[in-house]
């Protein structure tokens, strides 16, 4: 059960993968028989067997009964960030994409498709079902639905040869700006399995995508069944985060004090003197890394924190505090290195900056408050995001 503790097992996994790399084994190459592999790796046969099983689950190797274990082909990455067409993306990777049209017809939308495309169920749609292959191997069954009124005459095209997105762009001047994607797992039905050349019941991704144009019209709804054996998704995420948002929780992390557990409510005012030294060291380190520090605090701890704010803060957020008091703290902070301070109240946020001291007047509408709140208090996600707030303030002052 406790596999994370099972060093033998982990070592066996490592050893087998190293064996594959060192021996340059490629897809469909055979691994040595279990017993020989165990001898070669100098491990027990049981451990090696367990590791092989785990690698099979992960799709690194596959087993043929009576024949042994073989290296599985690398899964193709379906790049979520890349909105290019399937064929363009694959060509760029040096692969040979191809498509086989299963059906291409004009039909009544029907209830379900109508709902997805935001049209009436009696409206006509083109439906195009293709098997998409990479290097001759089927990877996905893709069925696209497009409202006929948007793409009249689509039937004149040959989709085994041409890319749908390319045609939309070139001949219909439709540029897709935005794609909403949902992914779930399912198991292949008999028909899907036959088309994808996998076994019925094998895992597949079910991907549903709605493509919209600049004017927010849905031009295409696509449902794809993707073989999990041949594909994986890849997504690249980034954020430009160099502001350390220092709230009470993070301060307690910095103090590195085990007593500060949840039950004690992260009470930073009860931190003993010796731990403050640690905070000093840690904050100095953050500054050396050229990162900015934003204190995000409530009234109770302000007196205690003022020294650290003076020494380290680039930004300051005061949360739900009496106005006069807040104003006093902000004045003090702006005399130091603090560039922007936000005073957050239930119904408004006031931005104060060093450059425009007159705006410290609390209650003044510094920027369009409505837009501001929409973006940061009730916007995407349910959390209010103080960092976004600070950035916005920096950009607008």
């Amino acid at each position, binding site marked *: 059960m406790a596999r*994370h503790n099972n060093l033998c097992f982990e070592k066996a996994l*490592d050893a087998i993968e190293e064996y594959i790399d060192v021996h340059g084994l490629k897809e469909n190459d055979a691994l040595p028989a279990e017993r020989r592999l165990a001898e070669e790796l100098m491990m027990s046969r049981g451990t090696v067997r367990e590791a092989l099983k785990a690698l099979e689950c992960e799709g690194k190797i596959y087993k043929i009964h009576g024949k042994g274990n073989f290296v599985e082909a690398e899964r193709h990455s379906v790049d*979520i960030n890349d909105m290019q067409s399937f064929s363009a993306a694959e060509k760029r990777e040096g692969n040979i994409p191809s498509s086989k049209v299963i059906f291409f017809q004009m039909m009544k939308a029907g209830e379900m498709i109508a709902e997805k495309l935001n049209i009436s169920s009696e409206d006509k749609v083109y439906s195009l079902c293709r098997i998409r292959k990479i290097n001759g191997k089927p990877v996905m069954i893709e069925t696209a639905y497009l409202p006929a009124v948007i793409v009249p005459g689509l039937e004149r095209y040959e989709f085994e040869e041409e890319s749908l997105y390319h045609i939309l762009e070139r001949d219909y001047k439709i540029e897709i700006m935005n794609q909403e*994607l949902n992914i*779930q797992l399912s198991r292949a*039905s008999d028909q899907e399995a036959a088309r994808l050349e996998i076994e019925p019941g094998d895992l*597949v991704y079910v991907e549903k995508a709605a493509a919209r144009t600049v004017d927010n019209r849905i031009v295409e709804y696509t449902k794809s069944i993707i073989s999990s054996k041949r594909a994986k998704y890849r997504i690249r*995420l980034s954020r430009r985060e160099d502001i350390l948002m220092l709230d009470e929780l*993070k301060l307690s992390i910095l103090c590195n004090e085990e007593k500060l557990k949840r039950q004690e409510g992260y009470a930073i005012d009860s931190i003993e003197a010796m731990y403050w030294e640690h905070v000093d060291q840690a904050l100095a380190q953050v500054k050396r890394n050229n990162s900015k520090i934003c204190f995000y605090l409530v009234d109770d701890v302000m007196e205690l924190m003022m020294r650290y704010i003076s020494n380290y803060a680039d930004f300051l957020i005061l949360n739900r505090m009496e106005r006069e008091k807040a104003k006093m703290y902000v004045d003090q902070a702006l005399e130091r290195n603090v560039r922007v301070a936000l005073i957050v109240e239930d119904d408004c946020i006031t931005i104060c900056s060093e450059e425009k001291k007159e705006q410290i007047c609390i209650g003044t509408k510094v920027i369009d408050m409505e837009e501001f709140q929409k973006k940061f208090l009730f916007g995407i996600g349910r959390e209010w995001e103080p960092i976004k707030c600070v950035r916005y303030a920096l950009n607008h002052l």
Partner: protein
Amino acid sequence: MAKKALYLQLWEKFRMQILAGEYQYGEVFPTERELEIQYSCDRKTIRKALNLLVEESLLVRITGKGTFVCKPDIRLSLENLKSFSGLLRQEGVETEKKVLFFKKVEAGYRVAKVLNIKKCDEVYKCVRVLYDKENPIVLETIYILDIFPDLLKFDLNIYSLFEVMESFGQFPTKVTEDILAVELPETEAQYLNKETGDPAYLISDITENQEGKIIEYNRAYIASERFVLSTDLS
């Protein structure tokens, strides 16, 4: 307006039942025969309605086993660079963390390859389960570069790892995420309260800091049934 065809009425009815959560995920849906009797109509009509639900992926038919409900109830957004607990919180799911293992270990071949270090270099390894109420939903194994002094002192039952890293001035800035469908191996299945072979996402994240250095490698198994992964790209 003409009255809607019976199969469409049934489709809407079943759909509402499933979306309203009258059936749990994975529960067997009544058979065509049972429905035929219940709604006293012919089997063809029932089948047409069920076909629509299968097409929508609200039901799944498994040959020889029956028809099962598969409506996921947690959306996992792929847009934000956040920890799993952060992403789940965004969807209103407050998770409890439970650390099973947290020690310094030798990196070993696979981890070293990802983190660009030597096999024998030490890394922090943390195995953690995230619970939604009583239910385990994420099993993550995290490997962290040995650049955080005294990391073991931090209680990862409480803290998010990203928060801890930020406190050290290391900002998770870029993540390359691979999402694979896998069948759960025995041990992982036990931790997640599932059967061996149940479908799961294996999400591996490679995290870079603000200088483009890889500082963390996270492999998380997520039992897929309750999750729909989603993104909205421009």
